[in-house]
């Protein structure tokens, strides 16, 4: 426990001055420190072409052993939150989350990223963006960084890009970062693969038919309080795939209509899953649809 200053007036004033100074000093910084790491904002292209969508990204570099969280943080923690300030006609979409990892202890399991992660954010632009001007993108990031303990971090990042009517050239300095980040994003399952989810009293059983025996499968639920994060996921390989038993969460008190999340298979590839949950006792629906919705947005409240 860090000692707190016993003079709240003084420390509040000091904090204000420090906040102001750091704000003034880093008003245009594309990189900022956070506890045990740094965040950098990068763009995929050199410029903005009105009417053409493009990508920016937040790249987190963390000290060894420290982690941040996925969209569903699991048993503890919280995902990074970003407040964007963009010029009129430019809007940020939801973060594209790379496949997470299981972190934590045998009894408390979190979902997140260690060491480094790049969060891609697609940006939409309108056709009538005035050319020859530049667009300034501001991001206020709140992020919880944890190892044994957790430290909340805040960063103010900014990026200015020229607006040009010609085709935007890719930024050669960030190309590698974006390519690597794309590779870590969950994909839609290939055509021909079939999945289904059966509902038993204590578990969801995810059956996958992927054309070959699967010896490794880990499921990450997108929504909280559906499966028991810390419970072992019991994998039964089958001739054409697998059956994965996911113990239900103690906090799951009402039936759910769909199970959504990310499935990581033997080849380390990650796939989006969004499936209707079959009623208990219903015949196993092995021709279950492999539904591919456009957006994987968490259900429930947003804070």
């Amino acid at each position, binding site marked *: 426990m860090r000692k707190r200053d016993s003079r709240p007036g003084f420390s509040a004033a000091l904090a204000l001055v420090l906040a102001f100074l750091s704000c003034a000093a880093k008003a245009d910084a594309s990189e900022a420190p956070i506890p045990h790491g740094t965040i950098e904002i990068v763009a995929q292209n050199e410029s903005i072409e009105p009417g053409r969508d493009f990508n920016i990204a937040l790249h987190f570099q963390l000290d060894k052993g420290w982690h941040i969280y996925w969209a569903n943080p699991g*048993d*503890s923690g919280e995902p990074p939150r970003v407040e964007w300030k963009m010029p009129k006609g430019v809007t940020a979409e939801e973060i594209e989350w790379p496949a997470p990892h299981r972190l934590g*202890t045998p009894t408390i399991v979190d979902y997140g990223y260690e060491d480094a992660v790049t969060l891609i954010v697609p940006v939409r632009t309108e056709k009538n963006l005035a050319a020859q001007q530049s667009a300034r993108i501001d991001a206020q990031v*709140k992020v919880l960084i944890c190892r044994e*303990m*957790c*430290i909340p971090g805040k960063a103010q990042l900014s990026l200015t890009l020229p607006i040009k009517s010609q085709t935007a050239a890719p930024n050669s300095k960030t190309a590698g970062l974006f390519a690597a980040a794309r590779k870590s994003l969950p994909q839609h399952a290939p055509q021909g693969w079939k999945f289904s989810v059966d509902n038993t009293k204590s578990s969801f059983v995810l059956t996958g038919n992927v054309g070959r025996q699967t010896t490794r499968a880990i499921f990450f639920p997108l929504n909280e*309080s559906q499966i028991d994060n810390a419970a072992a996921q019991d994998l039964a390989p089958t001739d054409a795939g697998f059956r994965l038993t996911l113990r239900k969460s*103690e906090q799951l008190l009402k039936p759910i209509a769909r199970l959504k999340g990310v499935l990581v298979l033997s080849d380390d590839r990650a796939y989006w899953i969004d499936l209707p949950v079959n009623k208990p006792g219903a015949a196993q629906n092995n021709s279950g649809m492999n539904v591919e919705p456009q957006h994987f947005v968490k259900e429930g409240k947003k804070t």
Partner: protein
Amino acid sequence: MKRSIAYTMTIALILCLAPLLIAAARVGEAAPDFTATASNGKTVKLSANLGKYVVLEWHNNGCPYVGKQYNSGNMQRLQKQWTGRGVVWFTILSSAPGKQGYVTASEENDYMAKMHAMPTAALLDPTGEIGHLYDAKTSPQMVVINPQGVVIYDGAIDDKPTTDLNDVPGAINYVNLALEQSMAGKKVEIPATRPYGCSVKYAD
């Protein structure tokens, strides 16, 4: 002969510990009983409080989510408000020695005095026995037990899983909700939530 006595005793010990090990708290079921030493030196037994509502609050003074509740004065307000209405409030410290949030009895007493915390007692659980009994995942995880000894709420303190002090005023407090609804003879609308916060720092 000696060996068979030891053997029998081991089996007996396993048998009597077994319910303890598997009987994690569940909403709607009896709250597992425990005995603990409080920071004030007293011995506390949960089942001695049958007939009263009991709140369990998992605590770690270095956790920023706990900091949000205490630095805003919210946790102390809740403790004062509910103990004033006859509710028994136990703050539970399940951090293992050497881990964040582990404190000695006198350190906890100093902390409570400084923060003006007002639980009925702060229970020292350095072995994590009570934490595991309730499958406590985070601080500040909250459990509410009714006068019949049944768990009626288990989960987060409120609906704002952040470390931001500004999120305290507008939050829906699940402990208040459970206590108010249960005391009014109503069904507890939200009996379980994801207990956000820092992971409980159990022994490795």
